[in-house]
């Protein structure tokens, strides 16, 4: 079963994502901020997630910082950044930091599933 780590600071959004992704058949681990996301990743150990979904803006540690830390450790886990996309340059910047894809907020559900499926099935090029 495809395992996802999902981090979003809004608990309702997080719950919605979790329930819908579970309905789609994914195993979902959740975190409400960047620090918690890194904790969950450590806890999972060898059962590392197939795809990580990170909200770009989170308290304590932002999604961007988590992304930098994960890539800094040499991890190759596919990361999808979910961003409010206020700045047109942001997606490009995140890609440079190692994000495999950037999904603007709000997103169409089908688009998100499509991105997750592509990455989970080994297409990590981002293109």
């Amino acid at each position: 079963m495809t395992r996802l780590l999902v981090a979003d600071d809004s608990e309702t959004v997080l719950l919605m994502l979790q329930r819908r992704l579970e309905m789609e058949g994914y195993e979902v681990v959740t975190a409400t901020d960047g620090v918690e996301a890194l904790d969950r990743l450590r806890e999972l150990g060898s059962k590392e997630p197939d795809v990580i979904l990170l909200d770009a803006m989170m308290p304590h540690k932002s999604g961007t910082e988590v992304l930098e830390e994960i890539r800094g450790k040499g991890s190759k886990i596919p990361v999808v950044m979910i961003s409010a996309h206020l700045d047109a340059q942001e997606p490009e910047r995140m890609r440079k930091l190692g994000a495999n894809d950037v999904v603007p907020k709000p997103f169409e559900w089908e688009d998100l599933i499509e991105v997750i499926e592509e990455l989970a099935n080994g297409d990590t090029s981002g293109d």
Partner: protein
Amino acid sequence: MSFNPSLTARLRIGFLVLFALLLIVSLLGVGRLFQIRVDYENDITRYFQLELQSERLRSAFILEQAAARPATAHQTPSQAELDQAAASFSAAATDARKETADDPVLTTKLNQLVAAESAWRKVVAEPLIHEHVPPPPVDRRLTSAVTNSGEELANDTRAARDSARDNARADTRNTTILVAAGLGGALLAALLLFSGLINSMRAPLGRLVEGARRLAGGDLRTRVEVGGPVEIATLGRAFNEMANSLERDARERDRVERMKDDFVLTVSHELRTPVTVVKGFAEMLTAQRKSLNTRQFEAAEVIAESAGQLQKMINDLLDLARSDAGKLRIEPESTPVRPLAQRIGRQMRPNFESKDQRFTVSVEKDLPDIQADAGRIGQVLANLLTNANKYAPEGSEVQLAATQVGDEVEFAVSDTGPGLDQDQLDHVFDRFWRADSSESQSVGGTGLGLAIAKSLVELHGGAISANSSPGEGATFRFVLPIAKDGRPKQKTPADRTKAGAAG
């Protein structure tokens, strides 16, 4: 300039000076003329008196002669008559002397006459009374001396009277010329004074006019140099105060506008999260149709649809707020037209099919790539097609066409719907404007789609326009620049950036 009298003061001073000059000139002129007239009358009277006296002198002398030398032989010379005539002569001479007092020539003539008469009386008359006949040559010489002197006096008096009249005439003429010159001078002075007054206002008034024009042209920092007469200077100061107040108001308006933009931006942003959640859960419920009864499913569907509309509306508001705040950013890149048009066509097709409308997409062959943000231009196309879909009735035709026009690519969305009249065309890109309010209820939508389309196209450096006549359908056209490299460049992520346009 320390001495700067007001306009009123300048006018008062001007009029006062002018009035004083006119008064002085008039008074002097009239006074002089009056004096000339009085003098002339005095002279004439005096010379007339003198003539009268010289006539009396002549008569007295004739009587003296008659007394001393009677005309007939039976009359004897009379001492008494001679004395009486001599007294009369003397009285007339005394009266005449009064009139000649200030005229040396006439005085001399009078003295000569008196001297000649007394010489005649002593040498001719007295001896005749006492019957001593003087020698005839002496008698003739002395008698004619008196007669000649009398005539000279009379002639000189007439000559003096004539010359007095000539003098008065010349004086009157000269005085009249002088008064006319004085009046002319006063008018000239007044003219100079008033032209100076007008000149002192011209420069500051010109500056005010120029300032008012600049201000009307929108340059709110315009201030004028304060100067000229007090009133004009006051006007200048009032103008500057007005400009200050206008600038202050404009700044305040900008501030409020910014606050409004920030407010809408923040509110829309904050609304997005709960709406996303509602929509997400509602969609999840509709996906679990089997575990819901019909009414529950219906409710879930309505919630999902309404949340979708709400999300679209919030996104539109957010886009406009960003556009107003100058924060709407696009990422233009070389974008092939055909895949973009086809993707939007695919996305919109179900809407047209459900209204039984014939929908065609035609893209010109070998069309160069456009310089555009594919997601945003997709949003523009979706907005235009959504409008066509909503306003065109069932069974009509809708076409999306892309063609090259010069250095640009033109997109045209046309329908065979009811069309728009000129008044509607004027407002079609306004916010919250919707064609015909009675229909808009059934049509739905926020009235923001075309306003956003316009902002986005203009942000790309393009232009959008609407063409229509009632009953003949409507065509919305916009042009975008061709990409600099012009070659197709595939980039999938951009294609996915739909920004929720299909909500």
